[in-house]
């Protein structure tokens, strides 16, 4: 199984310039473990002092916020496209 992960440009200084990479992780905790191993410098950026994913980082699976799919319990499907995106605001107010 393989998923494709896309990172924001701000993070590619921690990945030797790579904005995309493939992972065999089966869920979000597995992906974070994979990042720990493959890109340790990135790992320290995306996690807070308690080792949790920073709350400003949104994870999308294909076009959907992973929180609508069950969050950490969601099982990645082969070919899923995962995006890490900073949260931004907007709307009326």
């Amino acid at each position, binding site marked *: 199984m393989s998923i494709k992960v896309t990172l*924001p440009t*701000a993070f590619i200084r921690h990945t030797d310039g790579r904005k995309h990479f493939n992972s065999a992780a089966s869920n979000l905790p597995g992906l974070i473990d994979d990042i720990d191993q493959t890109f340790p410098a990135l790992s320290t950026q995306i996690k807070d002092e308690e080792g949790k994913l920073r709350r*400003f980082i949104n994870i999308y699976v294909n076009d959907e916020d992973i929180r609508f799919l069950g969050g950490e319990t969601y099982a990645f499907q082969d070919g899923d496209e995962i995006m890490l995106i900073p*949260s931004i605001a*907007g709307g*009326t107010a």
Partner: protein
Amino acid sequence: MNYSCSRYELKCNECGKRFGNQPLSACPDCLAPLEIAYDLEAARDLFTKENIAAGPANIWRYAALLPIPEGFQPDLPVGFTPLVRARNLGKRIGAANLYVKNDAVCFPTLSFKDRVVSVALANAQKFGFDIVGCSSTGNLANSVAAQAARLGLKATILVPADLEPAKILNTLVYGARLVRIDGNYDHVNRLCTQIADEYSWGLVNVNLRPYYAEGSKTVGYEIAEQLGWRLPDNVVVPMAGGSLIRKIRKAFNELIYLGLVEEKPVRFFGAQASGCSPISVAVKEGTDGIEPQRPNTIARSLAIGNPADGPAAAKMIRSSGGWAEDVSDVEIVSGIQELAETEGIFTETAGGVTTAVTARLYADGRISANETTVTCITGNGLKTTDALIGRYQQERAVRPRLADFDAYLRELDGITELELTTAGAL
């Protein structure tokens, strides 16, 4: 007019790192939102009541604490909208000292977004962007399109495909390129974040966001100045991304720090539609954690299911001693009608939310009758008339003859012969 600004630069809310001035909205280290930090001590001599009073009757009177580039000469008279004493609405909902901050008449496109866009585009020019844009629920699209046209910038604007027709038209008329996205605002927002990463465009609420958001502070400055340089007891603010409510507090805090108003506690109340209420839910549950929602409300301009400033807004509301409330679509329409019928102010659906929530806050005793409360109306009802479809019927046309007019009046319910005679005698 000297539009001298205080020194300012980008600062990370979370880790405190500073990044100078550049088109950047998230901290490169922790992805937390960046904000503008000012040298408030340096602003002391510039940001005075005298200098403000000598300035133009628009937001640029507060230029000393806005992030506008050196040498920028603003000529668009945005803001300084009326603060209306709402006696009639107050009587109806039990509020003795109620005011409406009416940004339904903000220039040039009838929403408070004109404030933020004018600041954002000043910086877009400074950073050399030829193309500007935004993700929008409508009002921002209108404002970016209009102001880009005036500045000679190209505009590309992304909106949810199901936006109100008037908001679509009010974007296209200015010659902007409008891209309708098959998804809700959160989908549009996500796409715009990726676009900002890939294209050299100045997206006002993405890579220009810290500058853009500062324009919201002017609502707070104006409220204080229009109350005679004093702060209200309460402010009721609609919440989409959660930015405006925080920026009004930032304005109040700056005024207190610089001695322009007396320090006093101000309670902040957030207003959302029940069909999209992640911040209201967080406040009610006593948490800063925002659980995203799938929006389903007629108040589309507030329909952000995953508000970036939501956690900070929830925390700020609670720490102020305020509260957040949400109302149904039926109540939203009633709120629109109530504000129009009592104060002659026609607001969009977001204003219906704010009005209905304000009434609820008084009814529930969360605000006491004699407290001074400002309720913020952020957009014009002409843009969301579809929310009122079916609410009003046109009567038949009457021939231009007095006898026909008399007969017509008699047909109407409640018009008696006596009333007609009395009116005629007057």
